[in-house]
């Protein structure tokens, strides 16, 4: 969700803030809300994973803000105890620079934004602001927002890997479901980096694989992504490929196989002997995901979105992204980009990088030079 975009030119920042702008300023970062010198993020529960990503996002942003700017991440879930929340913050503060750590704060509210619990040292006026921000975030989720700059980038990468040639800007806008300013900002960003070739007919094409922007996109994508994670308390879970084989009988929804099992469809040389988990992708309206089918894959699994080593991870994608699913022998598979996101989420960096390099090599072998 991007409500306030931190513009690269600092146009939304004060003059004083602009002095802190630098070449390292994260260009594609945003927060859910801003209030005075407060940056605010709203995380959804029931686990803390969403909050962890948002806290990290806030920490990165604070690094480029004046020292009086503070950040508050609110989790809109009553299921998280205040103690757990404070523990999470304490852990986060231990691993980031002290000058940033003390400017990071957490709060909790119920789903509707009411009953806000703040650290006692914070201004009580924040409560009302938090309530409004939670409601705004919930409304934005319900409206199923259009594509973001992340989606624009992903679309360009997919098109480039598939060697589709130049694409009209309006087609990007349509495919991604993003507004014109969002698409334009995304393209401008890539243009500045020198990786985008603009043609006279309002079409664009990547000149090559945008290696500099790629890691930032991965990080931002994984932080923005909601993943339902499942653990197996009895160590009797079916193997990933066994669960995948049951998928078509378990649900009539379009659920795509991703992660290692999916990547093997696109890159059979993937250097992983056995998948550590099954990754699935389901394209759904926010808050309307139907994950009842998981019980048919393995009824023993328990959802725990904070689990570091789940046996099943279901990536909840915006509805429009089911167009990226590929049907092979009656099963849906996520496209290579999606599979790589899952590999990085599992920290399988080396195999993911090998897969990426293979995809780039294949593209470069078949593509005509541009620009």
């Amino acid at each position, binding site marked *: 969700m991007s409500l306030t975009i931190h513009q690269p030119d600092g146009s939304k920042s004060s003059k004083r803030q602009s002095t802190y702008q630098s070449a390292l300023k994260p260009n594609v970062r945003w927060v859910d809300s801003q209030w005075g010198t407060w940056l605010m993020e709203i995380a959804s529960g029931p686990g803390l994973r969403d909050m962890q990503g948002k806290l990290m996002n806030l920490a990165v942003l604070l690094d480029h803000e004046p020292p009086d700017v503070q950040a508050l991440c609110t989790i809109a879930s009553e299921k998280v105890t205040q103690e757990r929340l404070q523990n999470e913050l304490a852990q986060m503060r231990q691993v980031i620079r002290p000058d940033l750590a003390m400017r990071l704060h957490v709060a909790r509210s119920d789903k509707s934004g009411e009953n806000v619990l703040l650290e006692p040292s914070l201004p009580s006026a924040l409560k009302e602001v938090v309530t409004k921000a939670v409601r705004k975030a919930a409304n934005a989720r319900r409206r199923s927002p259009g594509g973001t700059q992340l989606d624009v980038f992903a679309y360009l990468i997919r098109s480039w890997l598939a060697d589709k040639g130049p694409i009209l800007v309006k087609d990007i806008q349509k495919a991604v479901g993003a507004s014109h300013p969002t698409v334009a900002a995304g393209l401008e960003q890539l243009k500045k980096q020198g990786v985008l070739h603009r043609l006279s007919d309002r079409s664009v094409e990547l000149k090559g694989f945008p290696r500099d922007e790629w890691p930032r996109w991965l990080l931002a994508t994984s932080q923005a992504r909601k993943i339902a994670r499942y653990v197996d*308390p*009895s*160590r*009797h879970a079916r193997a990933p490929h066994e669960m995948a084989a049951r998928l078509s009988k378990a649900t009539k929804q379009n659920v795509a196989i991703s992660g290692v099992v999916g990547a093997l469809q696109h890159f059979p040389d993937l250097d992983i002997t056995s998948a550590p988990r099954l990754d699935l992708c389901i394209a759904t309206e926010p808050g309307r995901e139907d994950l009842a089918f998981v019980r048919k894959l393995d009824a*023993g*699994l*328990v959802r725990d979105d904070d689990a570091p080593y789940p046996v099943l991870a279901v990536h909840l994608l915006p509805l429009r992204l089911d167009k990226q699913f590929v049907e092979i022998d009656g099963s849906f598979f996520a496209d290579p980009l999606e599979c790589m996101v899952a590999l990085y989420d599992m920290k399988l960096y080396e195999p993911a990088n090998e897969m990426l390099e293979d995809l780039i090599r294949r593209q470069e072998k078949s593509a005509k030079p541009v620009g």
Partner: protein
Amino acid sequence: MPRPDNNELTPAQVMEQVARAIPEACRSNVIIIGSLAAGYHFFGNDQSKAIRTKDVDAMFSPHAMATGAAREVTETLLAADWTVRREGEFGEPGDANTPDDQLPLVRLKPPHQAQWFLELMSAPGADSDGELIKKLDRVETQAGHFALCSFGFLGLAEHVPLTTEWGVRYARPEMMALANLLHHPTIGTAIISGGFFGPTPVKRANKDLGRVLALAYLSLEQDRDAMEKWSEAWRDALTTRYPQRAADLMARIGLGLLDLMGSRDDFNEAVRTCSLGLLRSMDIGPDALEATARRLLAEAIEPLTQ
């Protein structure tokens, strides 16, 4: 995690002792049920998995031959220096004047060891339709009169039993589980106060349904799809043994388990009996057995109710 004592026997060793003690002519009439059957099936001769079972349950099958075979086995064992177990609540053999319901069950201790005793039972008769009532048949031996008991759903242990290398057979784990599930459609108030599970009395239903979870857990250790196979085997057993009532029985298989899962205290008691019984050598907690219960419900029980 409790480890077996050095002098404890493996399930295969106990099974061999029991089988060799039974006259060869009667061995094919014996089906071992209960914890020895389960221990033998899952652990065999694994030295790290000795069993703590005190009562080895031997069911005579078919029902028509049970009394005769039980008499022969009892007299053979007593002649071989086995003794009638008389401790505690287990009384003296009766005589012709003792009413059936006051006769002791046949419980025999092998010579020179006190780890286990043999308890003889009977498969239910052909007229049994799976009712829960306990039936007693008189066994007249030279040492006195005993009762051979049978329970309605014990007949499921007769369904396609497995064989040992010594000629006696043993009940399939899934059939013992099914009998226990059907025997406890609710968590009843009956308790066991024998001390096996510690000083606190344990509800019989919790112990028996805990056994179901342990059997399921161990089966899943061997085969991740075991619960689906149980479902098919249960359908076959119920339609074969109780053709008139099969649909009704299938509909109620899971009731007791759902009750157990709905009561934290009962579930924890069931887990405790498992960790003192079949799962003793393993470190299995409530979370793992809850996962097992969910798999049992979803993959073995629910397909039969649809």
